[in-house]
């Protein structure tokens, strides 16, 4: 019962946050980069709901647009990671043998790498002076390309079980090729697993982006994201004087906890 309540509340909060990101223009009429030079570090008011930052930019607008960047691109990265896991894991489980051992060995190797070290090494490979939009794409594509191994192990195990099933035997007997088996039989049958892995990856990518951006290696200014909005937390004096600047952190924590609660309640037996 409690699980169901938690789940309902989590879905509602996520729906509200996602709606804010999709219709950001309806919630704020200020662009995220517009500067009010006469009003730096302003306190919350009816004009600027969360005040302004040290460059005079409206903090509420930056939080709304930053939420859009973090919340729309983390699912995109999760989709990429899940797609890679689906194809490679499905193929490994379907074919078995040396191909399966090779793919699993690669996944194990990637899983044992310290993700943040590899991410910043790959990020540093790109020129530093790239445009903010390109920095967003680079950050989330890198996350997607490195985030598939744990999903792959689950997909591979499920696909291996499917290999022995009657309908696969029938499909083979009717002359399906391996590619047809993969895309017409394995992938459609494993859809619930892909969905679970997709949901698991989203909070992970949100948190990794936040850490990368806080270190100055993720989404570049002036484009906001939860991570680079949190860079302001480094100034403890300003934070204690303006506690409303912790709103991005609060939003991030609440969103990640909502994802966790949804996942946890879906794992519980009915």
């Amino acid at each position, binding site marked *: 019962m409690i699980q169901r309540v938690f789940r309902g509340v989590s879905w509602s909060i996520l729906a509200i946050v996602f709606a804010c990101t999709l219709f950001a223009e309806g919630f704020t009429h200020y662009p995220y980069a517009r500067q009010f030079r006469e009003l730096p570090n302003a306190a919350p008011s009816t004009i600027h709901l969360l005040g302004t930052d040290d460059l005079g930019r409206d903090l509420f607008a930056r939080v709304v647009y930053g939420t859009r960047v973090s919340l729309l691109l983390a699912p995109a990265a999760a989709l990429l990671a899940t797609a890679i896991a689906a194809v490679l894991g499905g193929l490994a489980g379907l074919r078995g043998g040396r191909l399966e051992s090779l793919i699993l060995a690669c996944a*194990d*190797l990637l*899983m*044992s*790498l*310290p*993700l*943040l*070290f*590899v991410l*910043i*090494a790959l*990020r*540093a*490979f*790109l*020129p*530093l002076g790239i445009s903010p939009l390109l920095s967003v794409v680079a950050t989330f594509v890198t996350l997607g390309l490195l985030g598939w191994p744990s999903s792959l192990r689950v997909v591979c195990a499920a696909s291996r079980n499917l290999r022995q099933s009657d309908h696969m035997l029938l499909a083979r007997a009717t002359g399906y090729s391996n590619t047809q088996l993969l895309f017409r039989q394995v992938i459609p049958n494993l859809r619930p697993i892909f969905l679970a892995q997709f949901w698991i990856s989203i*909070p992970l990518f949100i*948190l990794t982006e*936040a*850490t990368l951006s*806080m*270190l*100055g*290696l993720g989404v570049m200014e002036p484009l906001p994201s939860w*991570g680079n909005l*949190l860079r302001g*937390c*480094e100034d*403890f004096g300003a934070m204690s004087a303006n506690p409303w600047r912790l709103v991005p*952190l609060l939003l*991030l*924590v609440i969103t*990640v*906890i909502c994802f*966790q*609660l949804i996942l*946890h309640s879906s794992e519980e037996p009915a």
Partner: protein
Amino acid sequence: MFTWIVKLGRKFAMLGVLALLGALLCATMIRFAPGYGADERELDSRLSQESRDAIRSEYGATETLPHYYRRYVSGLLRGNLGTSVFLQRPVAQLLWERAPLTARTVGFGLLAAWIGSSILGLLAIRFPNAMLNYSAMALTGFLIALPAAVIALLFVFWRAPVFLGIALVTFPKLYRYQHNLLTQAQSQPFAFAARTRGVSENRILFRHVIPLVWAPVLALVGVSSSMAFGAAIPLEALSDSPGMGQLAWQAALNRDLPLLTSITLCVTVLTVGVNFLADAIGQRKSS
């Protein structure tokens, strides 16, 4: 025993091959990165063409690719990891200076996380209580939802030691994994049978449940070391702790690829080695 030693030998031979492949990958990244071989001194209009050529050959910009790989790998084998572009010092020397601090921080952090998660996990299993269970879930859920960089900032604010930050990042994941394993093992039919025969809960836990989960928990040592090294970057960078994590961050900000790839290679070889060792010991225990 002999078979196990052969398996362990194979794993470490594989580690050697992986290290070589990793080194070649690092070399390729440095060689093909935008700006390779370019030096701002070349912009000096007072320099003659010979001087510019000398600067370019100093960076190896004119050599062929196979020659470049041979030079890079032979340098690595001799312990020469190149020179940091940003700090203008040998990379090996920088790593040698910074590695002990990171090893200490990561080691103590992991120890604290393992002790904390094991005690809490055992308490939650031995004394099943909805309040304790929900409190532990809420605490770990909240800690998982905090980015490592925010934990680092809190530690700077509290002036707390960095190793506790690493412990705080790894603890919730370790607790949840251990708790799941223990819960699954405790709901097995053998535990139920032991309970019906009047065996005490302590005996079931320590004589039957823990030996069953020993191998998968040991395999987690490798994964947790990789998590701890990952957490060391934001924690050391934001707490101004002069370890390898801070060095990697500075190298990334200054686009010092020779330094960054060498650090990544060293940490990767270390974490993959720990993973292999933990797997091998886990297999030995379970066989």
